[in-house]
């Protein structure tokens, strides 16, 4: 038994047939073929699968695909224009804020939403905001620095 769902995925309409039990994360990866969203724990702790639903970060492993029907989703593939880097991605690269990179898409989607809400955060606030995403490689400090750098550039971009 499957249901037909339609979602706006990174600004484009995507329709697909899913079983009611299909996780949103599996739908994104295997249905829509967007494998930039990574699956780390499937119990809502590691944050690797974080995507944005109507602009808000959610764990795609804790949602069913059918719950996203008729709504808009943004994944890491929708963060930057083709061939380019979003300012947060560029900051990650410059500050060496990723090593294996597996957790990175989840961090990026969490941080993008965070900086929209808090454009000028303090270091402690950044660390709190990052605490919903696990990284086993970097020890986080470079990620905190990348967020500071990205925030500064995004503010400057808005001011310009």
């Amino acid at each position, binding site marked *: 038994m499957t249901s037909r769902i339609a979602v706006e995925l990174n600004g484009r309409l995507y329709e697909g047939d899913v*079983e009611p*039990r*299909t996780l949103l994360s*599996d739908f994104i990866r295997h249905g829509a073929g967007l494998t930039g969203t*990574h699956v*780390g*724990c*499937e*119990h809502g*702790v*590691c944050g*690797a699968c974080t995507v944005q639903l109507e602009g808000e970060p959610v764990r795609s492993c804790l949602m069913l695909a059918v719950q996203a029907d008729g709504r808009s989703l943004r994944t890491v593939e929708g963060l930057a224009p083709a061939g380019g880097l979003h300012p947060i991605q560029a900051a990650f690269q410059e500050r*060496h804020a990723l*090593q*294996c*990179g*597996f*957790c990175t898409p989840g961090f990026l989607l969490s941080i993008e939403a965070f900086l929209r809400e808090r454009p000028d955060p303090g270091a402690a606030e*950044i*660390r*709190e905001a*990052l*605490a*919903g*995403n*696990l*990284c*086993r*490689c*970097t*020890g*986080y*400090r*470079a*990620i*905190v620095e990348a967020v500071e750098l990205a925030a500064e550039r995004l503010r400057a971009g808005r001011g310009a």
Partner: protein
Amino acid sequence: MPGVAAVLTGADLEGRARPLPTGSVEDGVVADAGHPVLARGKVRYAGEPVAIVVARSRALAEDAAELVEVEYDPLEPVLDPRTAGGAPLLHDHVPGNVLVSWARTSGDVEGAFSRADRVVAQSFHIPRLVAAPIEARGAIARHEVREDVLTVWCSAQDPHRPLAQLGAALDRDPDRLRVVVPDVGGAFGSKGAVGVEVAAVAAAAVELGLPLRWTEDRAENFLSAYQGRGLDADVELALAVDGRILGLRAVLYADLGGYLYPTTAVAPHTTAMLLTGAYAIPAAAVQVIGAATTKVPTGPYRGAGRPEAAFLVERMVDLAARDLGLEPVELRRRNFVPPEAFPYETPMGWTYDSGDFERCLDTALELVGLDRWRAERERARAEGRLVGIGIGMYIERAGGLWESAEARLEPDGRLLVRTGSSPHGQGHETTFAQIAAEELGIDPAAVEVRWGDSLAGPAGVGTFASRSVAMGGSALVVALRELKERAAGAGVGVLELAASEGGLEVSARFGSGLVFASGAYVAVVEVRRATGRLEVLHLAAVDDSGRIVNPLLAEGQVLGATVQGLGQCLVEEAVHDEEGQLTTANFADYSLLTAAELPPIESRFVETLSPLNPLGAKGIGEGGAIATPAAVANAVADALAPIGVRHVDPPFTEPKLWRLLREAGA
């Protein structure tokens, strides 16, 4: 069931898959107890694979797996490596449940202990840990029937060891097997040996004539991927009254689990070999008893035996300092292997190639601000607060064996490098391009680095033991120097020669003995009296990894390893219940540190160059995970000294410390 292709058990794989090889230990006895691909008759731990369900989708496979009925007659669990010898046998042919045994004595140990003014003894328990890469394990296997070539793509640390391990398990010639390791989401030692699941998937792909994919979930990773650490130890130090260490004696009881993975025996042997640490100890006797227990096997996890060695010897040195009434800093200075002693052969028989341990310690003490923290500790104690300072020296065995590199310099000046070494987050692409660019004087952007395909790349040993730059990087240097010699012979530059000859190709293999990175970490902690909560106030990390090629990436390794080391101190512990069931099998029960829990960490490098390779490099991947637990453990013991606590084993969780505080009447 529609959509289900097959259900295979151990009986179905009879004659098609053998247990994985067991590995070996120099001068040690290793039992013939390799991990079977699927269990036959007896399962030896909760989490051991018993059957494989092949279906069109994961959901269907999971539905079908629920219909597989396994009848278990419970056997007596064997959980404690100290008492496993008297427990029922896990393997009928392995007497005393001893999977690995090893012992070495060097110097007059008995004499040292009888001469000693003071003997310090302590027992230790280092819990098992879970490596927990955020990407769990997975593999795809496809068998081309006509050519009889089996291709396995797997999340592994390198293609070479899976190639050898799968070749042995499936009895398949290396030229009928291809292993591809694409981008890998972290490993930390846990993907150096292929899981038996990979062998099962590969065997099933051949058997069924279907391409198969296996991706484990997090619960499977906790239950079935080999774990790290798991060591009990009894250690004694013999000391003269002036603080000179005369001798060391130790028995190590390693909790190895139900079987031996190819790398299981490595960690306890490494612990034994490094047990004299940074100190010139003239006599030592160390015995390793690697016990079979009814738990998932252990294997390398970041540090792989070295954190255990650092924890044991560094705790012993602090206990000795306390018993002799000496400053821990001073006791260390009196016993360090001095800089002029290199190459220095330890009593256990490894030869440290280079180092300057006192300089590392001085750098770390300066970095942390020792005088300031000592004053702060006195102030805190006067107020009844529990603040402690701890030092963790470390030695990291790195490098060894060999690696290879191929390079092709195109007529237009682009350089294609193929390395046998392969990354899973370390940044080989950057580092190796930088090494090549520096050697040839070209732009790093003109260098392309490829790796990870057993068919397309040069042979290699693998990415482990922090050996990539020292071995793989050196192989690349050797190859490129040969290019430069060719050009010099022709009286032109390499770029000119490449342009005139339509490109140049070169390959090289580089081998050397072990190199030894080292360092000094200093931790300052406070234990909250009311709650037992441990706060790390400051951590200074000083690593001597020889020449640092890329400071940004090197610091990334230090910070990442240090935070893993902190996790081991603060929260991480794989807990099994009295029946041997893992009770910490998800990220809620086995927590990793988050960004919100970071203490201030400062990192510096001391560079004493290794004489064993052209880069002068040692290793950078593991120091933080090795030294941090030792430094924090010493700081915790220092903090709790005023209330009469002598020793605490990690992890230093709030409930554990709270109970200690209550017992001490604090």
